């Protein structure tokens, strides 16, 4: 399922876009590919809410090198995902949105690995696409295939309905309208039920916002900071019955060796 790509430039663009959704399509830092995300004409046509000055941009700027590399998505797919996830979890005055939190990187890595290939999924036929929801996922697609087909068909729908404009060319309200059309099945796609795609994207976006930063999302532990989750830390014996306690310890990623437990050595 992994497609060989060398799209570092796109990622730079993608990273730039996290400065704010409204600004994302307006930045216009085109690379030689001329990829539409860089065209920068859209902001004028569809004025979006001003991008708040947010820690998101700092977080993105501080992202380690290589976190922008994509293993799975091609350029338009990445542009679509970036423009979609930042509406599902938008930036605000205090906390970054999904794009600046690295959710594109997170989903890309997930789709390039076992999850994308249908790890732990029973995929034998026959398939019944119109099965009742109680019976769960019944499509023939791996998650990777679901994303590829879903994005392709949603883009076609958006272009047809918007005089050729792509999803990422739309303003915030228009993008929200497309997303809610997918969510409620108001939009009908040729190959799959739109809500299945939407729910997968929403679930993966929430994962990418809250999973350990080692997976590429939740950059600077923004999701954890937002709710006050301390992460991989593992010891509240003395605090659990301290009612209404104001816990202020910095969150910790499992990638941080300091989170390792000392009793490894005293219990051979």
């Amino acid at each position, binding site marked *: 399922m992994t497609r060989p790509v060398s799209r570092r430039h796109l990622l730079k663009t993608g990273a730039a876009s996290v400065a704010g959704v409204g600004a994302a399509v307006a930045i216009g830092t085109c690379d030689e590919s001329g990829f539409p995300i860089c065209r920068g004409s859209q902001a004028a046509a569809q004025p979006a809410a001003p991008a708040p000055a947010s820690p998101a941009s700092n977080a993105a700027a501080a992202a380690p090198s290589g976190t922008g590399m994509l293993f799975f998505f091609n350029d338009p797919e990445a542009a679509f995902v970036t423009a979609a996830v930042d*509406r*599902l*979890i*938008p930036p*605000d005055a205090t*906390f970054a949105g999904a794009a600046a939190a690295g959710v594109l990187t997170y989903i890309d890595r997930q789709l390039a690995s076992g*999850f994308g290939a*249908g*790890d*732990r*999924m*029973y*995929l*034998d036929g*026959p398939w*019944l696409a119109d099965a009742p929801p*109680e*019976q*769960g*996922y*019944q499509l023939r697609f791996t998650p990777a295939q679901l994303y590829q087909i879903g994005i392709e068909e949603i883009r076609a729908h958006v272009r047809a309905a918007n005089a050729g404009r792509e999803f990422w060319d739309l303003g915030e309200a228009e993008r*929200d309208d497309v997303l809610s059309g997918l*969510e409620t099945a108001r939009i009908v796609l040729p190959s799959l039920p739109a809500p299945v795609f939407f729910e997968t994207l*929403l679930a993966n*976006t*929430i*994962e990418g916002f*809250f*999973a*350990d930063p080692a*997976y590429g999302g939740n950059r600077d532990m923004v*999701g954890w900071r*937002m*709710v*006050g*989750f301390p*992460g*991989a830390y*593992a*010891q*509240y*014996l003395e*605090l*659990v*019955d301290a*009612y*209404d*306690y*104001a*816990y202020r310890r910095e969150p*910790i*990623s*499992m*990638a941080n*060796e300091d*989170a*390792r*437990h000392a009793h*490894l050595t005293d*219990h051979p």
Partner: protein
Amino acid sequence: MAVRMPPVDVALVGGGMTAAILGKELAEAGHTVVALERGQMRQTIPDFQSPTMHDELKYSVRHGLMQDPRVQTLSFRNFPGQRALPMRQLGSFLPGEGVGGAMVHWNGQTWRFQPEWFALRSWVNDRYGRDFLAEDVTIQDWGLSYEDLEPFYDYFERICGTGGTAGNLRGEVQSGGNPFEGARSAPYPNPPMKQAYSGHLFGTAAAELGHHPFPVPSSNSTRHYTNPYGLELKPCMYCGFCETYGCEHFAKASAQVAILPAALANKNFELRTRSYVLRVEWDRGANVATGVTYVDARGREVFQPAAMVVLCAFAHHNAVLMLQSGIGEPYDPRTRSGTVGRNYTYQTMSGINVFYAGSKRINPFMGAGALGTAIDDVNNGSFDHSGLGFVGGAYIAAYQTSGRPINFHPVPDGTPRWGRAWKQAVAENYNSTVSLTIHGSSVPHPNNYIGLDPSYTDAFGQPLGMVTFDFPYNDRLMSRHVTEKAWRVAQAMGGKSVSVGWLDDHYSIVPYQTTHNTGGTIMGTDPKTSVVNRYLQSWDMHNLWVMGAGVFPQNAGYNPTGTVGALTYWALDAMLKQYLRNPRPLVPS
């Protein structure tokens, strides 16, 4: 041709809790025992250690310790006549895979069933009359009593180092415990867990309404403890990574910590991993099991001859194995005849969130699997069902198991599912919400059963097990009643808003509910309506025994593990004292 192994006295199908108990005890009694585990060896060190164990995505979302549906899954439908479709991803319940089975990733909530539950049919008839329930509520007596089982409950709690406050000690009600529990012969071996803020808020409101709050009985050890096998549990650190995780702290009673080392120390016991049992072999003439056939790590079919076979797999898998082996008469919902697969039951769950909207700090991440405050005032034996038209009940608990944010980010009713308002609501409510669990019982219904799927197969080419299940009307009435009681407590907790997750839909295979799948190989007093007798011995062949929650004729409003452990020791007692010296049917059929 299958490879043939040297014969053993006992073959155990599975390497989880019940197999570990039987392996330890039967080996010690001098029998050669092999346990066949489909998954791999896993140990507290190195496999369950932090920080990598503290990975919500890997273990809670992607089910890292669970059965792999690519290899084997079930098909599912809501009612006979509907087309069953494969459960393509795990969701509603999470069977474990690998040594220790589900006892690795359980929470440690260690309940006893109330006494009347074991003779439920007789109890309902005596108390409410034979016409009280609809004829399709096919509850049955278990064939044993709470008093029969009590010594084994007690022993299992000592093996697990269960902590709690006794509510009924030899008939005397104790303050601070559960006054609705059956009489205990001894206190819990360990003190209860610390009670979290969420439990304090719930317990205070519940007591004001006249209920009787108490700490949930917990096998997350509350102190250094050495169990009767000489194995040590260490104190729980309330790390908040318990259910769906292995415990790094040697605190949760897993098979690895509390049982297996004692079994593995005996040369009579062999734990054979990566051995996927396909079927029980049996002699059609003599009507006895002759051993099991499994696929080994190299992909070979291997025959393991054994004088006795015990099914120790997860609940519905034992029923599926019997069906795949052609043992017993499969249950048929049209004629309501046959036994194997009959009375498949589950758990009837609902939930309530109390939102304090930023005005309290709950710190949900300071959690443990069995950290909770509960009331048992609305469980089956605690109140009068007259005029209500249902049997059963639930405990209500404020559990504080974790604040892992991919799965835990509660928002009040009316909040959009995504976007700016959702994000703000998550930020505001994450640390100031208390969740109540209403843990309801489950009665059997003639439509709910386990069969074999007519079209889908597993990786070995065998038909998938097929589950047909929807919530019976009895349980919808029950859930409405107990959830309303919980809502009254929730209203009294002083939150800014309350949201209720009523049970008002069909059963769905998708969202996680519980891994409390019960029935399918039920125990009972009549071979026409049960698979095993009161000792968990097959009615059909005396040297085949079945452990696990599949033997429950109906499921109580409690977590099943305490009862599964007690029943295992109860069956073991019959094997050692009555059966192995003189193998025969222990109950005439």
